[in-house]
């Protein structure tokens, strides 16, 4: 009798396998490749009106903090070349892990150059270019209630400071470097540090949600929060800023198309879109001090 009892589980297992096989057949349906559940939504009005893709599609691993300009550039690039760029927006560390594990994809654009260096060290990058810069600024709550005017003011008693985690993100790594350059003892700042954050947008959210009073932040990320925060800029140079780079991955099956995307991004149209989204393109002309122009 116990042997017969296995019949039921076996029947159900066959049913499940059947469903999986039916699922597998999805990809045989015309036009259904990779979109079994819902048709892929157009990402913007421009894209919806553009001619059908020339058949090529590039896969881009992109830092989630630079989504806005990248989506706009992708739509324009597809409109002009017929090549669709499919981005996945994650934390740059996650993207690095995905590149390592999946061995798939054409382009990598981490939020911070620190991750690109790691990808280069691992031999994953065919070619890379700088397309914009991240410049550090002090981000404070709207109205600047603690009257912070310079880096030293972060040491004032009672100022709740948030910092990027030095091991997790470049803004954290840079905060440590900046303090060294400015000869501000890390321990002294540490007395006011109430939390470490894993990404630059998390730091911005913390200021916006009033969890911290101030933080060292990248300029274009701080620009996302100008409704609820203010920016106090300070003098910077190449050493205290971070290049935003786009790299072609060695796993790319269409390196020529990937290269043309790279050229498009560093060309006038790509640069115009980055500027529109408040990215610094030239360290001599940073986003902050703000010139008063917004979208």
């Amino acid at each position: 009798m116990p042997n017969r009892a296995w019949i039921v589980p076996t029947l159900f297992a066959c049913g499940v396998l059947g469903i999986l096989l039916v699922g597998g057949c999805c990809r045989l349906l015309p036009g259904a490749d990779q979109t079994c559940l819902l048709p892929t939504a157009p990402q913007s009005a421009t894209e919806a009106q553009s001619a059908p893709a020339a058949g090529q599609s590039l896969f881009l691993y992109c830092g989630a903090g630079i989504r806005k300009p990248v989506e706009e550039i992708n739509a324009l690039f597809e409109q002009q070349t017929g090549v669709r760029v499919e981005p996945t927006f994650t934390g740059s560390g996650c993207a690095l892990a995905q590149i390592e594990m999946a061995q798939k994809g054409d382009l990598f654009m981490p939020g911070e150059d620190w991750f690109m260096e790691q990808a280069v060290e691992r031999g994953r990058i065919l070619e890379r270019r700088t397309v914009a810069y991240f410049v550090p600024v002090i981000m404070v709550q709207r109205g600047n209630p603690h009257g912070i005017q310079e880096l030293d003011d972060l040491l004032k008693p009672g100022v709740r400071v948030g910092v990027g985690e030095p091991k997790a993100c470049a803004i954290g790594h840079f905060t440590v470097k900046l303090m060294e350059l400015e000869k501000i003892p890390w321990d002294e700042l540490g007395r006011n540090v109430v939390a470490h954050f894993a990404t630059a947008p998390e730091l911005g959210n913390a200021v916006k949600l009033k969890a911290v009073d101030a933080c060292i932040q990248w300029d274009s990320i701080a620009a996302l929060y100008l409704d609820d925060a203010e920016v106090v800029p300070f003098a910077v140079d190449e050493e205290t800023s971070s290049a935003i780079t786009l790299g072609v991955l060695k796993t790319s099956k269409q390196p020529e198309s990937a290269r043309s995307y790279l050229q498009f991004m560093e060309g006038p149209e790509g640069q115009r879109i980055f500027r529109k989204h408040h990215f610094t393109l030239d360290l001599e002309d940073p986003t902050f001090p703000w010139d008063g122009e917004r979208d």
Partner: protein
Amino acid sequence: MGALDSSPVTDALGGRSDRPLRWGISLPLVAYVALIVCVLTANVVWLARPHPDTGQSYLASLYANDALRGEIGYALKLSMVSSLISAIIATLLAIPSAYALSRLRVPFRALIDTIVDLPLVIPPLIAGIALLLFFRQSGMGQWIENHLLPVVYTQQGIVVAQFFIASAFAIRAVKAAFDQVNPRFEAVARSLGASGLHAFVTISLPLAKSGVIAGFIMTWARAIGEFAPIMMVAGSTPGKTNVLPISAFLNMSAGNVEAAIAIVVLMVAIAAGTLVLFKQLGGQGYIW
């Protein structure tokens, strides 16, 4: 306190004056419920606050944003479709598996039981990396990718990631339902000439029905909230693999905290509806 007076707990305490004890045991509950309600209310109030420059409520301006509404609408549909498929497959797998664990003398039962729990214990991000590694670096995973079903960076990847975690929930919940069905009923049916399959279909399954349905709903709720494994396996591509939690993450990363919170509130509403349904179907106390 009327509701408390009629609850089984106070009945068990007897009819005498035991107010201090009643208060003692109900205060932590009231405090915890108040905390949850306050947190959720704070989110909604924060969303409804007026914009400092325009004076318009953030909620209203979010609703007026067509692109955002489109993105959230797509995410909602994708979440619903993918989580329903995952929950159905997980439950179909769970019914025989749970029945086997509940009734049969399966070899290495303790080991199998532990392995079933593993997807619940592994941190979600790590589960995602492990799945990605399986599909792209192992021979078996690559064969599935190439010959059966492309998974990595596709919508199917959403279902696979949800299924991997949610199946463990389904098996736990359905097993609890079968454990509560007295095996004697089946034994009687079989002594009267019913086959094992017949006894299962006509006796055990109907008796466990509400537990199975409740398990299905909990599995579905778990699948709809899945985030990190989907991000790793299916990617977070707007307009393709952005289920609700991924949309919340994408907006949070782009400084649009209000949109992220709106998605969270929407998900809480879905979860609340699911839990009400779950309890209506007799799910409370069934799982662990």
